[in-house]
Every structure is written in structure tokens, then in C-alpha cells.
């Protein structure tokens, strides 16, 4: 029997190894300012990855999250400039994200267009639609209540930490202990069998896209309030960071297998490695190459293990 948590443990071990190297060579990495910066910078990736993990678990993919992120950020900023309180602006931005996700989900689940095509189209359409609508202008002169959600700059990170822990715990709880969460795994593992046991696989697929959209909207708002301006080109390449974290965390790209813990660890490993290079005096240009190598290593290990397992089952 294979270990249930093999991948999670190996990612955790990699993080521990990285931490050890940093502790010995660059203890400054663990200053509270740096860790807080690191956490806030990776918060959007984390939130969206939680949704993406579920999309990939069902055997789908959403590459439009970067564009959704930009749209939701601009939207929240504009609403806030209209004088809406930041809470309402945030809620509406989350709703817009959920709507964009729902459109992707409906096209995938009910019109049965492959999600890679649907979300490729919405990635381009949303990105260029936004550019056309705003003329590429950034949203600036944001009202003071928008900054840091109206909190002090020291309280804000604590709220974020709470949000992160709450989101992780809530989704992990749902995936592990509720029938709906298990239906996500079943849908990705064998859609036909899922249909035969009476799971509404179309609703499941629709739901995970809508939820990912909502989380993307939330991530966009929480990220926008950290700056004076909201750029129209926010979230470029964000989808790749998110998908990479999910895959490194051990979620099978073909669906059916993976965990929240793995995804969180994947976000931590890929997020921590870039700044670590700077601290270790290695050129930051290596960051992306090293991330690529980690992704490659993760999927090669996965493929080799899967083949070994299949052979094991045949000879059982």
C-alpha cells in the first residue's frame, strides 16, 4: 500500500531543507519583516491555488485566473472610488469573480467544451477586454478607507493570516469530511463511475469553477489594498504560478488525487525559493529556472511512482 501522504512529506522535507540552508547561511531570511512580506506577496497565489486544486481534482483546469484577478482588482478600486465602503466593494468584486468562474464552469460542464479551451478564451478576452475598457490606465487616487482595508498597516497582516488559515481549514474540512468534497474527488477519478453512483458531475464541475472565481476575486481585493495604485496588467502569469504550486503539491493533473495540504506546501516551496536565492547571493535570474526544475522533478517522480504502482497492481 502506498503512503497516503508521500508527496506532502517530500515537499515538506524540501521546505525544511531550504529552511535549514537559509538558517545556516542567511539567517536574515527569517526576520519578521521578510516573512510577512513573503506571506503577503504569496497570499493571492495561495487563495487561488486552493480553488485551482479543486478544479484540477475534477480533471479540469482554469488558466484564466490571472485575467480574472486583474478584472476584479480594477473593479474593486473603481467601486471604492465611487464612494462605496471597502467591504461592499470587496463583496462585489468577489461576486464578479464568482460570475466569471461560473461562466467558465457552465461552458465546461454544460456545453462540454474542454476547459483548457474555454479558459484560454476567457483569459484572452478578459485581459484584452479590460485593457480596452480602461485604456490600460491604472486606478489611482484610491480613497484612504481602501488602503489596508481601512486597518492599520500592522493589523492588516494579522487579518490576512486569519483569512489564509480560515480558508485552508474550511476547504480542507469540506474536502475531507463532507460528501460534496468527496464528490469532487470521485468526479475527477472516474467521471462515468461518478455519474453511475448518482453524482451530478456537471454541477460539481460548475461549482469548482465558480468557487475558484470567487477566491480569485477575494485574492484580487486583498492584494489591491496593499498599494497606492491598481495596475491594469495585474496577475500576468499568475495562472502558471498557481497551477505550478498545485502540481508540485502532488495533485494529479489528470484529476482524482491530491490534497489541500499538498497545495499549501507547494505554494510555500515555490514562493519561498525565489527570495531565498537573493538572500543566498545567487542571481535572481535563476528563480524561474529553479522553479521549473522543481515542477519537472515533481511530475517525473509522480510518473515514475505511478508506473511502479501499476506494475505492482498487475502482479498482485
Amino acid at each position, binding site marked *: 500500500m502506498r503512503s497516503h501522504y508521500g508527496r506532502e512529506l517530500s515537499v515538506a522535507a524540501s521546505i525544511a531543507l531550504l529552511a535549514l540552508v537559509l538558517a545556516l547561511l542567511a539567517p536574515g531570511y527569517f526576520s519578521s519583516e521578510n516573512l510577512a512580506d513573503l506571506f503577503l506577496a504569496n497570499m493571492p497565489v495561495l487563495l487561488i491555488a486552493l480553488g485551482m486544486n479543486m478544479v484540477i481534482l475534477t480533471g479540469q483546469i482554469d488558466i484564466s485566473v490571472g485575467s480574472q484577478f486583474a478584472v476584479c482588482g480594477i473593479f474593486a478600486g473603481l467601486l471604492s472610488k465611487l464612494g462605496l465602503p471597502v467591504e461592499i466593494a470587496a463583496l462585489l468584486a468577489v461576486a464578479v469573480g464568482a460570475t466569471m468562474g461560473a461562466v467558465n464552469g457552465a461552458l465546461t460542464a454544460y456545453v462540454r467544451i474542454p476547459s483548457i479551451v474555454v479558459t484560454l478564451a476567457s483569459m484572452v478576452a478578459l485581459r484584452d477586454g479590460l485593457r480596452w475598457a480602461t485604456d490600460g490606465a491604472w486606478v489611482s487616487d484610491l480613497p484612504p478607507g481602501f488602503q489596508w482595508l481601512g486597518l492599520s498597516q500592522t493589523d492588516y497582516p494579522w487579518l490576512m493570516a486569519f483569512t489564509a488559515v480560515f480558508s485552508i481549514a474550511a476547504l480542507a474540512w469540506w474536502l475531507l469530511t463532507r460528501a460534496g468534497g468527496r464528490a469532487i*474527488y470521485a468526479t475527477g477519478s472516474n467521471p462515468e463511475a461518478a455519474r453511475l453512483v448518482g453524482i451530478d458531475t456537471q454541477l460539481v464541475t460548475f461549482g469548482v469553477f465558480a468557487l475558484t472565481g470567487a477566491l480569485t476575486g477575494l485574492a484580487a481585493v486583498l492584494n489591491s489594498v496593499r498599494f497606492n495604485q491598481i495596475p491594469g496588467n495585474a496577475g500576468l502569469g499568475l495562472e502558471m504560478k498557481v497551477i505550478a504550486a498545485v502540481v508540485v503539491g502532488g495533485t494529479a493533473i489528470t484529476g482524482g488525487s491530491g490534497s489541500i495540504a499538498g497545495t499549501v506546501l507547494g505554494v510555500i516551496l515555490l514562493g519561498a525559493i525565489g527570495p531565498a536565492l537573493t538572500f543566498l547571493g545567487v542571481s535572481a535570474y535563476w528563480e524561474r529556472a529553479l522553479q521549473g526544475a522543481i515542477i519537472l522533478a515533481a511530475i517525473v517522480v509522480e510518473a515514475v511512482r505511478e508506473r511502479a504502482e501499476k506494475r505492482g497492481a498487475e502482479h498482485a
Partner: protein
Amino acid sequence: MTELLLEATGIAKSFEGVRALRGVSFELRPGEVHALIGENGAGKSTLIKIVTGAVTADSGTLRIAGKSVYHNDPATAKSLGVAAIYQQPALFPHLTVAENIAFAMESAGSWRKVNWKERRWKAKELIALAGAAIDPDRFVSSLSMPEQQIVEIAKAIGLKAKVVIMDEPTSSLTETEVASLFRVIESLKSEGAGIVYISHRLEEIPQIADRITVLRDGETVGTCGILEVDRAGLIAMMVGREVANVYPKREVAIGEIALELRCVGSREAGVRDISLNVRKGEILGIAGLVGSGRTQLAETVFGLTPADSGEILIHGEPAVIASPSDAIAHGIGYVPEDRRQHGVVLELPIAANISLSSLSLIAPHGLIDSQAEQAQAERYAEQLHVKAPSVDVPVGTLSGGNQQKVAVARWLATNPKVLILDEPTQGVDVGSKSEIHAIVTDLAESGIAVIMISSELPEVLGMSDRILVMRGGTIVGELSRAEATQEKILALALEHN
């Protein structure tokens, strides 16, 4: 009189114009095992899919547990107490045994709590009832085929299903596992469930069944009690039809041996000890049930699953066939079963489909000479009577019969010595069927050695000079054209030790 558990009347179903069922009736009483038998393609699988709600019938009425079901779907069937154990288990490979069983039993509802402890405990108990011991925490992907069958059986027991459908449940089980399966069936019966039992193993049916229904060509031939019919009678019911002499078989001069196999086996393909030969001008028919290894034999000869034992001789010379390109180089062509998946490239035009296996002829320097390709395609399209506006139209726009002709033409372009045809007329309308038969006879006449795999017994009988029957991955009998009958072929194909 007790209420019937299942009552299907006049069920009809077509798939893309091909009629799979044309008015089937079937009933199941509480506490009985009702065997459902028939040849390949008789409609057994379609019928059970309609009962389980996996597909919807075009017409007919269905009553399950006394309730009329107007629109069946998997959830409805499940709620009425229908459970099916498929030949290919429908399980979730990434999930544990316990969870797989739980999915079948627990109701839907997104927020319902999942009790892992109870699931594990329940799974253990049900697997024990199914007569086995499998750790409920194992992932299904790590289970062997028989273990997966056990999980399916445990699911059906757990559901307290009233209508339990078992499709070839014993095909991958050992003797002891079969015995414990039969014990499970007895206990299900005693609790008042009805079992629909589909099997090709005729000799096990009297051991377990109370009644038998025979299907043929999508129709019910008859239902009778187990003691009212013997094996020969069953085979006669399964075969039944008249063999009209519609096959344009011509006497062809049979030449020397073109291909010979000596004790060939391939562990990967699951075929063993295959010895056969086929001569120039001869049509060698290969019959056998689905899963008997016919396609696997073809794939071994063609190098897709290379032989790991025995010898292959081409024109008397030992040949090594480790890949399809070796096979092509030795003059072997293979028109696979399921042409839409493997036989033709639906999106490409006829011309490109025909030239696919003989590109070296029309692209001598690596660049395709499109005029030569066109000319080649037109020549074969005419020879094989491919009905199409031009050779530039995509193959996907043609009828099934014409697609098959294109698949054959591709191999003619390689100038083959041996041509293997796997189910050449599957899903083809009657007119094209006899055209394809005429083409196959023409090919044999031109000196090609033809190996024809077919599930359609009249076709095998009508076309072949000799017939080999396969079962369990090897050849179990050879019949000459003169001595072969449908009954003899089926008897060989079904026999079981």
C-alpha cells in the same frame, strides 16, 4: 403471485442508426437468478445499461420494483434498488476501497458528514460478506482485477439491492472465488433479491441460474426454465438464424504459405501457443468471443505487442516483427477494429488517409508529391468503389462502409502479402457489407493471404476457407469450410474447463 422486480417490455435502442435492441422483453422475479445469454452484439450490454439508467431507451416500457419508470437515470435506478456489477469495474482508482463502497451506499448532499470510521468498518464487513478480505484503506488502483470485482460485489450487497445485475462476474475469478461468489448469490436470493446473470460460460449457468433468456440480434429469442433446455439447445437458440448464401465466395487458387506462426505468444497481449498458417489466396477466418484474444493475436502479428516466444515465418523465412514498421516491411497490413478510433483519421481527406502507410512511395525525397498522392487515392477509391464527391473530402464525412474501404485502401497501397482485417463490417450497413465482402474476395483472388477476424458467425462461415476458433488467448480448434457450422464454432468458443 409475487410482484416482479423488473419488467421490461418492447425495449428498443439505436446507436447512430445501428439498431442494438429491437423490442426486447425481460422479467425478473424475486429470489431468482435469471441468466441472460447471447452472442457478441446480441444486445445484452445495452439492455442492462437501460435498466441501470446509463443509457435511455428509444421506446418500450420499464417497470422496476412495481414502479413504472418513464425516464430512467443512474440515480433513479439506484433508488429503486438496481445495482450492477460490470465486467470492467466502474470504480474510482484514486480513492480507497472503503470510499468506493461508501459512494454506492451513501446518499448525495454536499454538506452531509462523511464518517470515515464507519465507512471503513462497513466496508470491511461487506467485503467479508462477499467472501474476501481486502484492507479497506487500500487504493483501488492497487487492486487486482478479481479484487476489484469483489469490491463491486460488496457494493451491491451493501446497497441491499433488489435487482442485482452481474455482467460476466466470473470472467476474471479463480475457482475458489467463483465458489464464494455463488454463495453470495445464494444469500442474495434468499433475501428476496433477483439476479440478472450474464455469462458466456454456459456450463456454470445450470449451477446457479433458475431461468434463462436468450437474446439474438437485439431481440428476445425465448425464456425458459433451467431444466427445460440443454447446452445444445441453448447454442441453437443463440445461433438460430438462417445462413443465407449471400457471400460472394469464389473458388480461388490457393498458393504457398505466406505467413506461419509457430507457438507464438506474447505475455503483454495475453496470447500464447499460437500456431497457424495462411496461404496466398486464402481467407482464414478467426472466430471467438470478445476477450478471447483475437484482436490481441492480430496486434502481436502486426508488432504492436511483439511476440516474446515462438517463431514467425514469412514465406518460409524467419522474421523478427518488433514494431508495426517491421510488419509493414514484411508485407503485413492490419485494418483494426473500431475504425473511427484506430482505422482512419476522420479529419484528414481520403487521399491523405490512403497514403498514410505508404508515404515512401509518394514522397521519395521526404516531400509529398501531392499529384502522385491524388492519383494513387483516385486509383484505389475507384477500385474499391469508395462513394465520395472527391478524394479531397475528409473521411469523417463518409458513411461507415466507405470509411472502412478507405482503411483497406491504405493497406492496398503498401502492396501487402498478408492482410489482417479485424471486424471489417462492424457497424456497416447491409449494402456496404456485401461490397466489402466482394472486395475481400477480390483481394484473396489477387494473391493476398487474408486473415479475417469477425464476431459475426455467418460472415466467418460465408467468407472463410478455414476457420480458427480462439478462447482464452489461444487457438482451441480449426474447422474446414466444409465442416464448419455456427453451432460447432460457438461450442468451441464457449467450452470451458
